[in-house]
Structures are given as C-alpha cells and as structure tokens.
C-alpha cells in the first residue's frame, strides 16, 4: 500500500520520532520544566501529535502534561471557499487555558491561516499566559505574520507541491511525504 502513495518520503517513522523527542525537549527547556504547560492539538493530525509530545515530555520530566484538542473549523476564514467541512470535537484539559502556557500542535505549517483561526478560538476559552506553536513540518509560504516556535522539520517546498504527514493513529503508519499536486 506504501507503493500506491504518490511522491517521495522525506521523513521516516524513526525520523519523526526523533524530531518529536527533540521538540519535546525544546519546549521543556524554554519553559524551564512542565509547569503550567498545556498542549492543544489542532484536529485532525495535530491531536495525536500533541498526545505523543505529552508522552515524550512525561518520560523526560516524570510529570503528566495536560493535553487536549482545539477544533478551529468555526473560526476559519475560508469556509465559503470550500465544501462544508467536518467539525471535530474540542476538548480542553480540566484546568482550562486561563493563565497557562499553551502550546498549539499541528502537523503542517503553511499559510498560517489555521494558526490564526486557532488563536481566535483560543481567545474564546480564556486568556493564556502565552501561546506557542509546535509543528511537525514547516513548509513555508506564509500568508500571515505567523511563525512556529518549535519545528520538527523545515521543508522547502514549491506551492504546487503537497505535503502529507501520516500518523499511525490515523493512517496506520508514520511518515512525511511530498508530491506534486495532481494537475499541476
């Protein structure tokens, strides 16, 4: 089934695991431990990534890091440009986000519009002490003044290319692929 996927692999499963572990360490280093940290994954693939990151950090610090999901569909600015999108559940950890150091977790950072929507969504739940952004892949081509604080892999791409982050929890296996978009 791997052969059926288009394009080429740029990160293997072990590559992704190493990158994620490094990102976990970076977050803990910058925050000087896990105090007040809350990880929020952006559905769909940000959520399992956030859980993996939480697990890595628990192994390092020996402390549980609260982890949740933040759906941003209702905050998108392109709802009228695409077919109706499926809405995923939002689940915040019991402590909420008020006064916390929130780390948003997503698979790919591209235009930055998802992150903008996530910041709007987050504001409706409370006022975090600070908000950080961790992504598996930063592929460039930002359309907004937004950057990631923690990046698994910087991946120079052309706009005509597509990047897929595949995760065992969703897709059955881990890898990052890049391919020419069909029709371009």
């Amino acid at each position, binding site marked *: 089934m791997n052969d059926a996927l288009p394009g080429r692999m740029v990160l293997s499963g072990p590559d992704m695991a190493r990158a994620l572990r490094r990102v976990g360490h970076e977050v803990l280093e910058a925050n000087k431990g896990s105090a007040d940290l809350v990880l929020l994954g952006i559905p769909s693939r940000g959520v399992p990534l956030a859980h993996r990151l939480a697990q890595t950090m628990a192994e390092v610090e020996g402390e549980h890091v609260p982890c949740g999901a933040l759906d941003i569909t*209702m905050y998108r600015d392109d709802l009228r440009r*695409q077919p*109706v999108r499926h809405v995923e559940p939002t689940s915040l950890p019991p402590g909420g986000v008020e006064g916390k150091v929130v780390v948003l977790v997503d698979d790919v950072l591209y235009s930055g519009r998802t992150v903008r929507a996530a910041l709007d969504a987050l504001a409706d739940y409370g006022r975090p002490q600070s908000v950080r952004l961790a992504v598996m892949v930063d592929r460039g081509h930002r359309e907004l003044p937004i950057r990631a604080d923690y990046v698994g892999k910087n991946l120079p791409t052309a706009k005509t290319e597509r990047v897929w982050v595949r995760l065992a929890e969703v897709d059955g296996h881990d890898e990052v692929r890049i391919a020419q978009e069909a029709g371009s």
Partner: protein
Amino acid sequence: MKHLLSMADLSREEILAILDTAATMHEVQHREVKKLPTLRGRTIINFFFEDSTRTRSSFELAGKWMSADTINLTGKGTSVSKGESLRDTVKTIDAMGVDMMVIRHMASGAPATIAQWTNCSIVNAGDGTHEHPSQALLDAYTMRARLGDLEGRHVALVGDLAHSRVLRSNLICLRTLGARVTLVAPPTLMPSGIGPWSEGDGFATSYDLDDVLPSVDAVMMLRVQRERMSGGYFPTAREYAVTYGLTTARLAALPGHAVIAHPGPMNRGLEISGEAADAAQSLVLEQVSAGVAVRMSILYHLLSGEAMSA
C-alpha cells in the same frame, strides 16, 4: 445542501453529519463566551406566521451565537396584515439581500413554494401538518445521545398523528437512520392512507399502546393539538389520557433503558403524566437544550461551504 425543506431530502450521511456537528456545537452552549465567528456578516430572517416559543427562540439564538444578524418577523405587525400576498412579502425581503429565511407557516408546503421564489436558503421551521425537520433532527440527536446508534432500535410515536408535522419528519428521519418505528394512535387520529404507506416503507401501526410499550427503546409522545381539532376525535380528554396517555402505570411497563421524548409543548395529564414527564428516562429538557445546538449545526451546514454561483 441549500435548503432544509423536508427530511426526505436528506441522506443518512447528511443527517449524521448534522448530528455530529451538533454534538460539537453543544459544547459552545456551556461556554462563558457563547459566540462563534462562523456566520459573521450573514443575515437570517426568522419569518413566523404561526406562534412558536422554542423553535423561534432557538433559531434566533443559534444565529446570534454564530454571529449572523438575525431578525424576527411575524405575520402580525407586517404588511401581511395589510393584505400583501405571501409572494410579494418574501420577494421584498429577499430583495434586501438576506442569506436565509427560516419559515413557519400554517399552510403545508409554503416553505417549498417560497424556495422557488427566492435566491436565499430556506429552512422549514414547521409548515401546517406537513413537516418540521429541525425538530426531527433534534429528537434524533437527543435519542442518539442516550441510546447510541439508532440502527435497529425500536421507537414508538404515539398520539395525535393525524395533525402532526413532527410525526412525519420524525418518521422519515428515524427510518433513514435505520430505526424500527411503530405508530400508535386511536383510529380517528391515525393519518388517513397510512396503510399503504406503512407497507411500502416498512413501519408498523398499532391502536394498542400497552401492546407496544414493553419492546420499545424510545417512546415519543406527541401533543394532542386542540387548536387544530374541531372536536370529535375522542370522547373525552380523560378517556384519551387513560387509553393513549403515558400514565404513571405505563411508565412502569417501559423497559429500564427506554427513554421518553416529547417535542413540547406538553399537555401534562393528557398525553403524558407529570411523573412520566419528569422521570429520569425523560428527554424533555435535553430536547430543549439540544434545540439550539442542532439548529446551529443546520445553519452551519446550509450557510457555509462553497458560495453558490447566483
């Protein structure tokens, strides 16, 4: 999906998509800040030619919580009372550039007719004795929240079926979701022509509530609509309550896991006893609470997505 006129227009997948979105919208209701920016700049007119409390207020709240601008109009106090035709009235409103009209009308089929006259999305919020799709969706939502998947579940719809638009929408919705449905009513309140319909569509009918109750997963009591009746459907209210009401005695005959639904407003002591309405299995308040979430989901599914080329 541009309009919501009849449950018959929705596939199983579309119904489930609306119910799933409603589940996430339900969470908004418990937030301190009940506001989503999703429908910013969109305009919704709630046009109610007939009285309504919960449907109108929940559509209005749903629109407001999603940042749409909503306006309520009633038959009274508009040009309708000056003799303007329905067509002229809705054309006038359409010309103002609204995105959606939510319509309740005493004439069956009015929303579908209006949909042909305008460019905006039309939601049927109850038309005569025809349909009330948003009610059926929220009923399915609450039953699903307690019972899980409705596929193969047995649901009894009981009461004044002949005058009930809720019945028709619920029947179609439940059948689409794969539930087993039994209609229970006195012969005078059974819709005419139900025989061939039930055979063709695979649902059952019964005149005996006690016979049906022990096997149900959910029982929905429909309101006896005195305002639509010229009388003579049953001898006395007391006799109706005894033979077709969900009395305290019948409450005990329900299976332990079964739930009780009522779309409201209830006639306590007539089709449902106070004990049954307030019992732990009763979904009545959950139905009201889900009303806004389900209607937010409906607005989302009709008003987001690719802009229709005019």
